[in-house]
């Protein structure tokens, strides 16, 4: 049996070209596909014969990134996240799930926090993008970033830039009004942190919104000391 004849949709339920089966030992199966299948020659895929279609080949894109105008060319399939990390070396924006489920890649698009993995680069034509780098450099941190440092709102640090973007958007929206804990939790509900730093993130944001006394009780140390703890 040639590989072209391999059963792609036979009686075995749950089978694709890439792979799966149902009945045991049924037949040999092709994991990939053959080289004469046009779908594996991406660069030779037919150009849609529609006037005005763009992005199959690199297409001009202009936008503003952290205050700096950018002018470059990208393919339609390049996500905003890949553009930032791979083409522009803005690696403060992280890739974690690549499906909009973790918030590590959050950026502000015209001040609105959005998952850059679920946007195409070409979507932000003419927009102003703010990444974590645009909030403040390490030598000149913004108040929110400083609060993150002071409250230890980070452990491994991989969620930090996304947390900062989500919470900076909240602070912009609230425009100096005091915030409730629940509002902060709502704002970062899409940001996953596997180290479990959430309580300190909430404390940090509240300290900026409501003043330094806003943090709740954290820990109490009972010292080993002669005469009483």
């Amino acid at each position, binding site marked *: 049996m040639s*590989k072209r004849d*391999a059963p792609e949709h036979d009686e075995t339920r*749950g089978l694709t070209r*890439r*792979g799966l*089966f*149902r009945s*045991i*030992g*049924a037949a*040999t*199966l*092709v*994991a*990939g*596909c*053959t080289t004469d299948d046009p779908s594996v020659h*991406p660069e030779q895929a037919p150009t849609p014969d529609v006037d005005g279609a763009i992005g199959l080949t690199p297409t001009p894109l202009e936008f503003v990134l952290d205050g700096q105008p950018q002018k470059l060319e990208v393919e339609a*399939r*390049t996500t905003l996240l*890949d553009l930032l990390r*791979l083409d522009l070396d*803005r*690696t*403060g924006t992280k890739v*974690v*799930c690549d*499906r909009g*489920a*973790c918030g590590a890649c959050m950026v502000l698009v015209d001040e609105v926090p959005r998952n850059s993995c679920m946007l195409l680069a070409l979507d932000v034509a003419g927009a102003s993008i703010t990444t*974590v*780098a645009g*909030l*403040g*450099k*390490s030598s000149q*941190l913004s108040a929110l*970033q400083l609060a*993150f*440092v002071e409250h*230890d709102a980070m*452990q*491994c*640090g*991989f969620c*930090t830039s996304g947390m*900062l973007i989500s919470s900076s958007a909240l602070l912009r929206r609230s425009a100096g009004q005091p915030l409730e804990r629940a509002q902060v939790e*709502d704002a970062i509900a899409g*940001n*996953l*942190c*596997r180290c*479990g730093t*959430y309580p*300190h993130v909430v404390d940090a944001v509240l300290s900026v919104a409501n003043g330094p006394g806003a943090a709740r009780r*954290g820990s*109490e*140390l009972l010292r*080993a000391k*002669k005469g009483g703890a």
Partner: protein
Amino acid sequence: MPDKTKLSVGYGANIQTISVELPPSEPRPWDSVDEMTVVGTPLPRIDGPLKASGEARYTHDITLEGLLHAAVLRSPWPCAVVKRIDVTPATKQPGVGAAIALVEVGDKLIFAGQDVAAVAASRPELARAALASIIVEYEPAPFVVATRDAMRDGSPQVHDAAVEERRTGADEPGAAEAQGKLQGNVRPGRSQKRGDAKRALNKAPVRFEATYTTQCHTHSALETHGLVVQWFGKKTVTVWASTQSIFGVRDEFAALYGLEPSKVHVITNFMGGGFGSKFGANASGTALAKIAGDLARAADKPVKLMLERGEEHLCTGNRPDSIQLVKLGATDKGKLTAIHVQAHGSAGVGTGAGVGRNAASVYTKVPDVLVESADVFTHAGPAVAFRAPGHPQGAFAMESALDELARQLGMDPIDLRLAHDNHPVRRWQLELGRERFNWDARRKAAADMRARSTRIRKGVGCAVSIWGDFGGTEARVTIEISRDGRVVVKNGVQDIGGGIGTIMAQVTAEVLRRPVETIEIQIGDSKLGPGVGSGGSKTTSSITPAVRNAAELAKAELAELATTALAATSTKHLRWTAEGVSVGRQTMSWADLCKRIEGEAIVAVGFRGRNAAAHPKSFPGFETPEIAGVQFAEVEIDTWTGEVRCTELLAVHDCGRVMNELTLRSQINGGIILGIGYALMEERVMDPSLGVMLNANLEQYKACGVKDVPDISIVLTEVISGNNSTGAYGIGEPATIPTAAAIANAVGDALGVHVRSLPITPAKILDALEQQRRASQEGAK
């Protein structure tokens, strides 16, 4: 004979003076009399600004000239034999620099997600696209992925022969090689034994027996496993790795390619979480280093291999599931006479299912104890150490069984624990929590809600932890004090997120009496001298004593210079302050003192001494010197919908001397929050008839988010043991051990019936309520 040194040690107000022998090189350990000025303060982590600005470069962020991106083709089959493999079509795809097969014809693949072939291309999407052109033919074979199914006679056998155990520095301390012989898919592991539990059970007037199950739990570190390999000829290589063990990566990489370890330069400036899964160059279920190394050689370019989220779930490790039959024997007065745990767990195709030591080592007043555990092999990705390997699952079963027995006997769960636990600190912690958590009043309120069958119920529960890793002596820390006054501390340890660099600066500042911000820390690089792997909660307890000892050595040299310069009669008369050093009214500034250094710098290398006091068994007054912790949880349950939330959690923990209360709190919060996910929502779901994982993402694999976090309070019961020069222990693992068990017990208190299976989902709550309703109807008849 070495001099005896007097130390003031203990916990709370229970302080006693002991004499210990110290080797000449070892400074007197800081004890309860020593007043710290920098150590213990809540200093924000020193690399915080780099993380908060996105400037911190992780392995995933490394860019190099000519860098290629790798992608791996993985078996979609849970079990199959490779009949054909051809990667040449991939080499013709756009942007591809190299394509390699990772299997040969005839190889048997034994889990969905196993390595098949790999490609390196100029962009990640091109590498992934090229994978589709690789030709592989598989002959599928029978498989089994459900643990209970795999235990049955005649189920497809995963391994035909003995299985080599893959061990890492994150494994449970003291875990021995499993000795049992493979029977079908079941391999009995080591047992923990005291007395004759079976006989005692037979004689017990009160018996309790129940089976508890826990799910497979994936580490899901935010930074996926990955590395960047850059060869310089055949014999020298630089590897950037997202690892929790730089030297583990170095040694494994060197072994893979037959290199001198010193020719393998490993860099981990920042890493995005590991939780036990990132030891070694390869991951437990994918040969990361071999793939990236081979691709880099084949393409003659540096290669970055960064796993996608789905792969991370499939082949980089997990916490094994468990099925635990717990039998307790007791007198009708509530005196426990026997504990017998028979545990089975699946580490997939790998080994390492276990149940920790709650049953065997916490309740030391129980005379007869037997804990048996066995690995069950299934066609699923191999497990690997995961934050307190074995312990959360074992704690869930043992602590649940105790609560159920207490309910059966009409006893208070805290009283039952106190009656059988000898550990003085844990006993103190239980009493502290009882008072601070308002335990009695809340238990009463819960009983009242149960009696009235309210729609919303609340309940409280507690559970305990035990941990026994006190750090090692392998680290070598270098401190350089330059003529210009700079202080640089160097070690090849990586920061897994605990903030070890910050604590190194604090310890150095404490010894040298220098402002902490003037201490420069260099870590995360194998060229900086031997560090330790961040596993077993031993980074702080291994590294900080070495830092202190190096700083003391450097200071001693400075003291000699100061004594001469200030014409003091002895170094003992020197007073060290932030300004410099003084004798009487004479003061010499730090800058002036350092100018007297001969040559470029004082360079001191310190290590944690192997001395009498270093052994935890010497801790005074403890039969069981392990690290103790207790957590108390409150849950709220909507009995109409089954919705369950942990609303409040009190964590009472010992971690030796607190080095930094701020970063410590972060770690404890993190352990608790991981435990909440384990208790209530996380679960790897495998389809039993297709053999594949159904939720290999971060959407249906449900890690705890901010709204799932309760109000957490932490009480630290400091213990000063004198067992190393700083007195630090670890906390990363102890903090996650009791959480799920405490929540399960709180659920039991709220409902009056226990949910014996993790995660405790709304579906299981509704099921438990239905069972309870039926039981009460039966009872009424």
